[in-house]
């Protein structure tokens, strides 16, 4: 296994008294894509959302255990760590495109402005780099000042990826990024994920087994809040050790 970008160690998570994650252990390889798969309600989104502490927005949530981010070695879910700092370091893409009610340009510049960048030339350059790296620059370079709501769903989602990438995060979280998109738009996002892998560690939740097998290097299968099996995507799909994993990835249940 290549060097780790992050490592989940004995992580449990609670919504009030309901335990949603049980003692998860999971390494995330740097510059590789790790897919989280499993039936609805198995806790894969919950696990993903621990990485940028988005659970902190809701009352009565509790983490137990560690998510170590390398190279700093900081424990992301430790109370002493400021979640705002973690969110600036770890980008997230959501299930549905969620552009802000702003121009295309300002959407991508959002994270940069939050980091205190006000220099217009620098903003412009970094927005262009982000839009180019997410393969949407050619389509929208002439209407950067138009509202982001004028874009199609697939374009909006790529804009949201550009927004996350523009802030130059250390890793990317993707929560079913294609679930609201048609197959053609999904294929473009998948191509993009393969590109992003060259630079980032990517953790992606997906319901689509073909997508997991095409786009990821490692796959973790979760069931009922537990990590059942983790391995290279090839192993998980062709030679799973657990019966549950086999049944799920071959489509026999879930």
């Amino acid at each position, binding site marked *: 296994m290549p060097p780790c970008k992050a490592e989940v160690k004995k992580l449990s998570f609670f919504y009030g008294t309901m335990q949603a994650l049980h003692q998860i252990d999971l390494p995330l390889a740097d510059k590789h894509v790790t897919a989280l798969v499993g039936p609805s309600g198995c806790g894969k989104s919950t696990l993903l959302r621990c990485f940028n502490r*988005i659970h902190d*927005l809701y009352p009565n949530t509790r983490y137990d255990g560690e998510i170590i981010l390398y190279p700093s070695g900081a424990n992301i879910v430790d109370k002493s760590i400021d979640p705002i700092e973690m969110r600036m370091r770890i980008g997230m893409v959501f299930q549905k495109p969620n552009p802000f009610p702003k121009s295309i340009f300002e959407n991508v510049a*959002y994270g940069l402005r939050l980091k205190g960048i006000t220099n217009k030339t620098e903003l412009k350059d970094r927005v262009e780099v982000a839009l180019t790296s997410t393969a949407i620059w050619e389509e929208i370079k002439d209407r950067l000042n138009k509202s982001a709501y004028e874009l199609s769903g697939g374009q909006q989602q790529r804009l949201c990826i550009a927004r996350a990438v523009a802030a130059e995060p250390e890793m990317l979280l993707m929560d079913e990024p294609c679930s609201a998109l048609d197959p053609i738009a999904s294929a473009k996002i998948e191509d993009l994920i393969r590109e992003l892998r060259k630079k980032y560690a990517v953790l992606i939740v997906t319901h689509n087994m073909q997508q997991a097998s095409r786009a990821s290097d490692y796959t973790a299968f979760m069931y009922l809040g537990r990590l059942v099996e983790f391995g290279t995507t090839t192993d998980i799909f062709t030679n799973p050790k657990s019966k549950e994993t086999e049944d799920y990835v071959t489509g026999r249940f879930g």
Partner: protein
Amino acid sequence: MKPTATVVAADAGSLLAGKPARSDGITAFVARRRFVNSVAATIMFAAAASSIVITCGIVAILTFESATFFSHVSLLDFLTDTMWTPLFADAHFGILPLVAGTLVTTAVALFIALPMGTIIAVYLSEFAPHKVREVIKPATELLSAVPTVVYGYFALQFVTPALQHVVPDLPTFNMLSAGIVMGIMIIPYVSSLSEDALRAVPMLLREGSYGMGASRIQTAFKVVMPSAVSGMAAAYILGISRAIGETMIVAVAAGMQPNLTIDPRQPAETITAYIVQVSLGDLPHGSVGYQSIFAAGATLFLMTLAFNVLGHYLRKRFRH
């Protein structure tokens, strides 16, 4: 699904029609249902249309009665004369002093109500813990349950004496005090509707902003508020209309003296206060002075209409 529904419908139809034949039962049932539908649609249309009919009636009366007034006073005098003295022997009918009184008290009220209402709405929607919200929200809404005449005397007996400590030589009757209290009264209209608009913004959008590393303040002002702009504009427009139309507070606390000034420390009379004054019987029915309340009412109507049209235009513009 469909076959079951048809069978049930057929049974019901044959029961209603008292016929055993299934196909006839369905026909009768469908016909009956169409009839009920069209009756319901007609009743609903009548209810919706009644608001238009009433508005048209009000406009017609205002126009008709104002016409009588304008046969005695020229429109030019009405719009340009700087004196409003219908009770004097030398009667002047210049609406400007009343318009000024209305606009100044409204401006003072909005100066209080819009910022306060907005801040309260943002706090309740984005910051307040559930328990705090459950206390503050109903308490704020209670402000609009206070009768306006009570507010009027609150302005006259409490706010004005308090202001006299701060503003030297403030007369007993003044627009400042009336405007401030009117603003307090309007806060819940603005805050409640604004909060609804803010809370209707999808959580997904907030998560997107927090996920980039934004703070609560940044998320509230940069993402949530711009998304709620059309609903908040509606709240503001309601607040403005409420301020322009408010009568009792200004009648009690602003002094019923037509006064062309933009200084809120001065006493003045608003259009609404003048209409009350005349309606209470200072002028004989049928006189030019009496007819003037319809011209004043028409002016008021046109002012609120203008604000509503402006608000409608703004909402359309800001809607994404």
